[in-house]
């Protein structure tokens, strides 16, 4: 029985690796994009504020 347990644990380890990494990658991508967007919106507003608009 013990040998089989190794297979089970490695399967769950694989799931424990693939799924969270994919979720984390997507989350980081989202955070980065939102931050870049906010920065650019700020720049443009600033430019509009002092420029003739």
């Amino acid at each position, binding site marked *: *029985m013990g*040998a*089989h*347990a190794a*297979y*089970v644990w*490695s*399967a*769950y380890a*694989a*799931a424990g690796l*693939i*799924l969270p990494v*994919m*979720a984390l990658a*997507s*989350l980081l*991508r*989202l955070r*980065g*994009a*939102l931050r*870049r*967007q906010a920065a*650019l*919106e700020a*720049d*443009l507003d600033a*430019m509009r504020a002092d*420029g003739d608009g």
Partner: protein
Amino acid sequence: MTVMSGWHRFANPTRFSRLSARILPWTLALTLVLFAAGLYLALVASPPDARQGETVRIMYLHVPAAWMALFVYVLLAVFSGMGYIWKHPLADIAAKNCAPIGAGFTLLALVTGSLWGAPMWGTWWEWGDARLTSFLILFFLYLGYIALWQVFEDPEKAARAAAILAMVGLINIPVIHFSVQWWHTLHQPASVFRAGGPTIDSSMLWPLFVMLGAFKAYFVTVLLWRIRAEVAERRVRALQMMQAEA
């Protein structure tokens, strides 16, 4: 078509962002709850299989992953079709961002599939298993789809090219599965590892359904994150262009 007009209401990105922001916490919570329950049921609260012993627990991962791998490809082909026919930008973005998640599920299905079969086959990769081989080919279809998006600069053209590939791929999935199945029976007429796996008795159904629910909730959550990221990235590109103009 009510579905279509309903869908159009989410058409413009800002309404989508507001809506997705509202439902995301719920889907995230649902994902965590379902995975917790699923793992408990799969690893603790369900009996080992009479014949296979503990390795049957891998089924609670393999079957949902395999199901989602196929489901996501069909979904991305449907989104692609909607984008291609009704020129719907959000559908294209959804299709594009389904693919990496689907590829992830396929990879997980391949890994868990070989781990599940290994004790019986004595090898890590048993070509004879028709289902596993079909999922390897499905993985290639995902890679092709993702790669095609990268080679186009113009997002609209990329969307239409990827849509054509997705639809051709969708037509070919049953053909590939049938051919591999036919090829498999050619080499190994009597296969102990039937496609559906051993008959599943009721005590095993619960962990399976809960895990499938967890995978679905996970998929919706991650897809919404990725779509929101893509919408923001396109906004960034538009702003950069404006900056270049101003």
